[in-house]
């Protein structure tokens, strides 16, 4: 009985901890503030700075290689984002 009770209490505690963690996650303070993100706005950091060119290169590789999908920064694949 004690073991069962302990298990029940443990489950409740675990549930509360998970809920707190989830709620906490929603209020995580961004450790990189918006005003510190100007570097990511620079075109040279864009994952897809030249969309017509990068998608064309995916096209070149897909036609000649066996692998497909998850083409990284520029998306690619069949409608991949």
């Amino acid at each position, binding site marked *: 009985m004690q073991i069962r009770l302990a298990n029940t209490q443990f489950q409740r505690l675990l549930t509360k901890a998970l809920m707190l963690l989830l709620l906490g996650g929603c209020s995580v303070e961004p450790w990189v503030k918006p005003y*510190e993100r100007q570097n990511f706005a620079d075109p040279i*950091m864009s994952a897809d700075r*030249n969309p017509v060119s990068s998608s064309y290169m995916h096209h070149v590789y897909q036609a000649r290689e066996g692998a497909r999908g998850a083409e990284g920064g520029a998306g690619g694949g069949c409608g991949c984002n």
Partner: protein
Amino acid sequence: MAQEAAVVVTKLRLQTLFCGLLSVVVSTTTLAAILPEERADVMYHLYDGGGMTIDGTSLLVRKNVADTYSFSANSYVDKVSSASIDVIASGASEYSEQRDEYSLTGTYLQGSMLLNGGYTSSSENDYDAETLYFNVDQGFFGDLTTFSMGYSRGSDDVMQNGNDAFADTIDRQNYRFGLSQILTPNLMMGLHYEAVTEEGYLNNPYRSYRFLTNPLDINAGFQTATEVYPRTRTSDAATLSASYYFDYRASLKFEYRYYTDDWDIKANNYQITYTHTFGENWIVDIKYRAYQQDQAYFYSDLFSFASLDEKDFRARDKELSEFSTQTFGIGISYQIPYFKGGKYIDKSTINLQWDHIQFDYDNFRDITQNAAVGEEPLYSFDADVIRFYFSIWY
């Protein structure tokens, strides 16, 4: 008619050709909850290597409406002239053809969420394809984290020139998940996964495998027959990427992808790109990419016997063999000062990019060379890929 069929013996695997261009109108969200830039691009592209010359144009236009909606349209043309090793080995002569592709997309921004959908169609004289896709991007934790997922559904019609009795289809579905994370003011990482399932006629109707005329006597030579593929294929691919910003205005990007499928192809590739700026107007990109894959379980350069039935799979596509590629690339972009900050144009660039790709096959032999059957030299070739384009932002 037979000659016509022979002429187009080794067309590229067009289903993959079609798929690649979809991404031209879908840009990955690296900073959550912003619409794509309003821009227009017109590009001339050229691929030259392995006896193939493919060139054409691509035109992309994007327009945003009311800071909430974004629309884009893309037209793309491939003009193919091919005398590749597959064409030559079959005894056919050079062939030409054209593929036209059109895409439309729409994007809706709501808070930290971006909804994106699109439609693409591709057509040529013996292959038609249509794809619908849908993506969702959602920013979390003050937009430090972006989660994305998407789904695509494609339907292809496969035909064969010179054989009006042949017609088949491919049904394709893609499932995508992605995570992008800003780690420091200079570093961002991403993890993307994509599963692809296909069902239908997955081989190229013009391609053949070869087998020994007499397995006990190699000097008897070989014969060829139409390839026999499985009618289903399922693959998984995952990409890990990182982008780092240098304070002197340069960036370093790294990507690694691992791929596996139920045809036993395992592949991995990585790419490193360094981008350097000179003044306000010049951007130079230097790139290196390496790719390696194992062969499909039903690939062989030379089979001992012919296929016994439709379940006894046979393929000799070099794209399913064991091989590796290396790419060396350089690109230069120049921002034209004359068009900067104008009434109608915010900025404009003129761009030239050149990639040199080396293909080295480990078990695909060049049967156009004179040698004993099965002892021909391994095939390899180099290709140059050029993109020249003009872009404006408005």
